[in-house]
């Protein structure tokens, strides 16, 4: 999607290994979000950021950490991947919080075997 890219697009990893997903934006938006999407659960917020080095937990943050050292990059790390973290991960950006729409990336399909 224009202005936001996620990498990698697909990844297969083994249980117990660390994994880092990257979200990069060129829109200079303040807010960035990581979601996971699973059948029957919809989009669930993992972590979000409201500025450089300012991050907070979402509803499903256990087993995940994030970092944002630059406005344009928001990294999601699975510290020790488990099969329950097999999912599609979406990054989103916004220039406002509750009142604005989000722009989503194309997603990362992660499989933990």
């Amino acid at each position, binding site marked *: 999607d224009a202005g936001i890219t996620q990498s990698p697009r697909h990844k297969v990893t083994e249980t117990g290994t660390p994994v880092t997903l990257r979200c990069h934006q060129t829109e200079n938006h303040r807010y960035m979000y990581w979601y996971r999407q699973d059948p*029957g659960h919809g*989009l669930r917020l993992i972590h979000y950021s409201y500025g450089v080095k300012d991050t907070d937990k*979402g509803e499903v943050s256990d087993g995940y950490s994030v970092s944002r050292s630059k406005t344009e990059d928001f990294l999601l790390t699975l510290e020790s991947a488990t099969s329950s973290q097999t999912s599609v991960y979406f990054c989103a950006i916004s220039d406002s919080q*509750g*009142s604005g*729409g*989000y722009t*989503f990336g194309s997603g990362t399909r992660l499989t933990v075997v």
Partner: protein
Amino acid sequence: QKEVEQDPGPLSVPEGAIVSLNCTYSNSAFQYFMWYRQYSRKGPELLMYTYSSGNKEDGRFTAQVDKSSKYISLFIRDSQPSDSATYLCALGRLGANSKLTFGKGITLSVRP
């Protein structure tokens, strides 16, 4: 009670049908109402945005908000196979660190 409830679907209709997708919500603090469309293996994209009760039209799509009854709807007229996608409602409110609340989504299939 969940903050946002969306009909689970899936929904299958013939081409040309009028489609009605609905969400209900429980928190009257929600002031901003959105519909996202998500094609298979893609990210959600913003389809409609409104912040007032009433109807908002954009081509074949109409977003309807009824704040008194706490429900929102998306109507698709003359549905096309290209409308086949998952539709998610999203609600927002003002406030520090407030975030959008999403419905779980409903998958629509329009049969040629």
